[in-house]
């Protein structure tokens, strides 16, 4: 890619095609993940361990849905119809992580999404804050400001649960389940859209750099919570299994959000009453 890093773009239509496609896929991935993550937070408004954490889940759900809405709207500049993106795609077209395919059953698994996966999304958003694609700048600022509290929520709860052996073991198990999908989510370094974005100035950092930025953020929290062994495994990320990896959807396999999730994020049941 021969773009100079000083080039700036006011419209997606000015971006060279491969870069435009790669950026659109990144924004759609963020939007889809945030839409479903918001739903997962929302599922814990009732049933969180304390009233306060239920309220925090409600607020985080609202934040994520707001972010998703902004990101879907941004994709209009790339030739997408936001209404179609939000309401008319099959599961197989969602660019969401396998971690979000179905509801999480336990609080530690929600914390894995909250502390680890939400932070991964924020690292990806941060990589766009000085993007040569200018329209994204001001949108990322408010979004990242809200995300600071999401991370603090995850961190505060990791500290809390790690005070007991049972809590620490439950955290360890949940974080371990999330480790592979999140480490892979940043993509492979040698090829793909992450490389393209990094080398074109549309995003800062290729997948390896973003993965490291994420590790720098979460590993100290794992250590704080007494999960040193797991922290070391995260950092090593030596033998990531890339079999069945779909680089376009940043996930393994051909699956997607389950039927219940899909119906609810699209609003199927109740939208049908509004259709001609």
């Amino acid at each position, binding site marked *: 890619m021969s773009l100079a890093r000083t080039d700036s773009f006011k419209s997606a239509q000015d971006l060279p095609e491969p870069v435009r496609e790669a950026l659109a896929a990144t924004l759609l991935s963020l939007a889809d993940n945030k839409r479903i993550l918001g739903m997962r937070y929302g599922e814990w408004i009732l049933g969180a*361990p*304390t*009233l*306060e*954490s239920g*309220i*925090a889940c*409600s*607020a*985080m759900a609202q934040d994520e849905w707001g972010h998703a809405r902004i990101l879907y709207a941004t994709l209009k500049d790339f030739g997408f119809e936001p209404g179609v993106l939000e309401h008319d795609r099959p599961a197989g077209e969602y660019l969401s992580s396998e971690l979000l395919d179905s509801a999480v059953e336990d609080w530690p698994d929600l914390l894995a999404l909250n502390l680890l996966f939400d932070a991964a999304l924020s690292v990806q958003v941060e990589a766009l804050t000085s993007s040569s694609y200018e329209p994204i700048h001001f949108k990322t600022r408010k979004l990242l400001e809200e995300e600071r*509290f999401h991370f*603090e*929520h995850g*961190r*505060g*709860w990791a*500290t*809390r649960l790690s*005070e007991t052996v049972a809590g620490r073991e439950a955290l360890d198990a949940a974080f371990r389940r999330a480790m592979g999908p999140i480490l892979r989510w940043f993509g492979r370094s040698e090829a793909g859209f992450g490389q393209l974005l990094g080398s074109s100035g549309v995003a800062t950092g290729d997948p390896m750099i973003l993965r490291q930025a994420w590790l720098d953020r979460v590993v100290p929290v794992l250590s704080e919570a007494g999960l040193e062994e797991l922290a070391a495994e995260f950092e090593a990320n030596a033998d990531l299994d890339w079999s069945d990896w779909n680089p376009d959807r940043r996930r393994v396999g051909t699956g997607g959000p389950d039927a219940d999730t899909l119906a609810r994020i699209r609003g199927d049941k109740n939208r049908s009453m509004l259709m001609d």
Partner: protein
Amino acid sequence: MGHLSGERLYEIFARQKREDRLEHIGTVSAPNPELARVYAWKTYDEASWFEMVVAPRDAFRAVNRDEVPFTLHPAETV
């Protein structure tokens, strides 16, 4: 309020404008100061606050009475 072990009450103070006085706006229960900050910010988000601070209730010292205001006015707790 059924308290979980290890939880403390935190008092929240805030002002909407720099020139305003800090006002006591509410209370949250949290296991650590980090979560108290998050809960305070996310629970009392009815205004666009210029400044918000939290402090554990048990950090307050009565000056002229035996009890602190928070125990004299329990209705202020949430």
